[in-house]
């Protein structure tokens, strides 16, 4: 396989399926996802809400069990019991630090909580927690130790959330829109912190975002999801500068830009992401696709090599129609 790393990936999904039941119907939240999350890499997952990106994250955290397919962690296939390992080795940073931190716990308790759950003795726990706080940019740790979340700014709260995620010394950190609830001027501080941690601790990051500019500036590789599948995958530069799948192209074209837009507003896809319990026939994207032909409505399509080496797109007619302009993300 081109571009495959020699090192075992941190996590690897093969044909991963996660289904839910809702009002008697099966919702296919993940419907055959093939994806590697490599050690040390920043992997971006982009797509609209309902595309399955959060379910993918929850599965990688061991919070959802796959109904079919295979999930490997550091090379080993995970069975039901294996999710315990996952829960320690992969930690999560949520979008909104105003909601993700228990308001009644002090910073010291918040950061020690995951370690306490593991049954770590108190002395060791305190040391670990203090290190994690300082690594998250809250130094000296004593200054923040006894504070409650309401006494902290949004940026500081997100740092506490990051410290709690770091405390168990995970190998991977899943960040679900880690800066979208933060003020623009504070965003960059938290992003610099995340990249610094990746370097210092060799952390792999999985960045879930709808923000194309952010994915482009932060990620090594990007996976674009639509209706429970990865529809395009490749390096951030390949996927976002030379997208092959019409959905990726549409996503990039509508991202608002602070730059003047030559030729006016881009074509906007009609309608919304269909309900995952009523999947369209053939290629899932065909009802909204500007390029759809007869075959697209009839035959389903999986990832196929397209564009640069290692880049794949799940499309019968991939390729670029015109060069993509520079875009800025939504904040």
């Amino acid at each position, binding site marked *: 396989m081109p571009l495959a790393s020699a090192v075992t990936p941190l996590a690897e999904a093969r044909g991963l399926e996660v289904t839910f039941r809702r009002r008697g119907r099966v919702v296919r939240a993940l419907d055959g996802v093939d994806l590697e999350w490599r050690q040390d890499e920043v992997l971006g997952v982009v797509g609209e809400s309902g595309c399955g990106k959060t379910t993918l994250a929850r599965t990688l955290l061991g919070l959802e069990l796959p109904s079919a397919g295979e999930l490997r962690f550091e090379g080993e296939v995970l069975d039901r019991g294996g999710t315990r390992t996952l829960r320690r080795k992969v930690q999560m940073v949520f979008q909104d630090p105003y909601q993700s931190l228990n308001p009644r716990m002090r910073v010291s308790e918040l950061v020690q909580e995951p370690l306490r759950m593991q049954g770590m003795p108190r002395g060791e726990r305190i040391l670990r927690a203090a290190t994690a706080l300082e690594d998250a940019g809250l130094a000296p740790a004593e200054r923040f130790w006894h504070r409650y979340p309401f006494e902290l700014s949004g940026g500081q709260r997100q740092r506490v959330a990051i410290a709690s995620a770091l405390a168990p010394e995970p190998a991977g950190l899943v960040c679900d829109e880690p800066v979208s609830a933060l003020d623009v*001027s504070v*965003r960059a501080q938290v*992003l610099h912190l995340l990249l610094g941690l990746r370097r210092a601790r060799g952390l792999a990051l999985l960045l879930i975002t709808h923000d194309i500019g952010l994915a482009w*500036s932060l990620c090594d590789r990007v996976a674009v999801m639509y209706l429970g599948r990865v529809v395009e995958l490749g390096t951030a530069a390949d996927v976002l500068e030379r997208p092959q799948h019409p959905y990726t192209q549409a996503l990039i074209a*509508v991202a608002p830009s*602070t730059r*003047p837009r030559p030729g006016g507003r881009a074509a906007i896809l009609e309608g*919304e992401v269909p309900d995952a319990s009523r999947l369209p026939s053939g290629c899932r994207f065909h009802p909204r696709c500007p390029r759809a032909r007869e075959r697209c409505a009839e035959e389903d399509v999986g990832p196929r090599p397209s564009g640069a080496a290692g880049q794949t797109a799940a499309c019968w007619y991939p390729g670029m129609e015109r060069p993509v302009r520079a875009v800025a*993300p939504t*904040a």
Partner: protein
Amino acid sequence: MSDPVLTVDDLHVGYPGEEGDIEIVTGVSFELQRGEALGLAGESGCGKTTTALAIMKLLAPGLRQISGTVDLQTANGVVHLQKRTERGMRDVRWTEISLVFQGAIGALDPVQRVSRQIGDAIRLHDPEADRTAVRERVKELLERVGISGERASQYPHEFSGGMRQRVMIALALACEPEVIIADEPTTALDVMTQAQVLALLEELRRDLGLALLLITHDLAVIAETCERVAVMYAGSIVETGPTDAVFAVPQHPYTQRLLGAFPLVGGERALPPAIPGTPPDPADPPSGCRFHPRCHLAREACWHGEMALRPVGDDHDSACLFAPLQQTAVAGGVR
């Protein structure tokens, strides 16, 4: 040609503190021209939403307008909103000036059919309207915002986020106002839906000649929608001008840094430099220029005095002492 429908002059809003009023809007002035879209940009806590609520006289309890005037041009002459009583405001709210909130789920009544909610707004404007006329108008309004008229009898929860925001817009249009204030109208929406709603606002503005005051933290949304922009920091406007000029040659260090915070695909792949610190506490604002503790250009002169907006270009004003500024390179290239 100047033909303002809404003129805000030296607006101050605050709440009582131990030593006098604590101001969260500290002297905001701007004009919204007929048919124009003006973007009011800034981070949370900068006073942009408070400015909007003060205009509508919908300030939260505890907050009050300390001074300043808000004048609305209507068919019956100028209305001084700051002098209106709550009763008097009812004559202009929705009929002359409407507000579209962030997160339409909270603004619509969950137990009332959409037709009923829009119908009530229509009757507010025209109490004589008979049922058939109202029903027709509801249908027309929904279709105007891209929703099938057949969905009028549904409840808000039956609509998706983007559709609910469209319902909100239909509601705001019900009494044919001249001015719409939209506060973060697309913030909770997905990119694709956001683009759809922004395109709708633009279309309505063009077709109906509406003036739009768009309040958002997202500079890119303003770039896509507004002819002019005003950037707020810590309660006042620090830069204002035509959107093209402000985004191409920003004349306040804060605007420069804000623009720099949005990486551009295809530019240099590096994270933008972080702005140190956090926005100030309104109870204890820094002296002089309120941005000076976080500013890379700050010198001693910035610590004292009032920073007034002054012209730096064609219809382009900045409150920075050092404007016009040299344009610095930021991630994504020189802006």
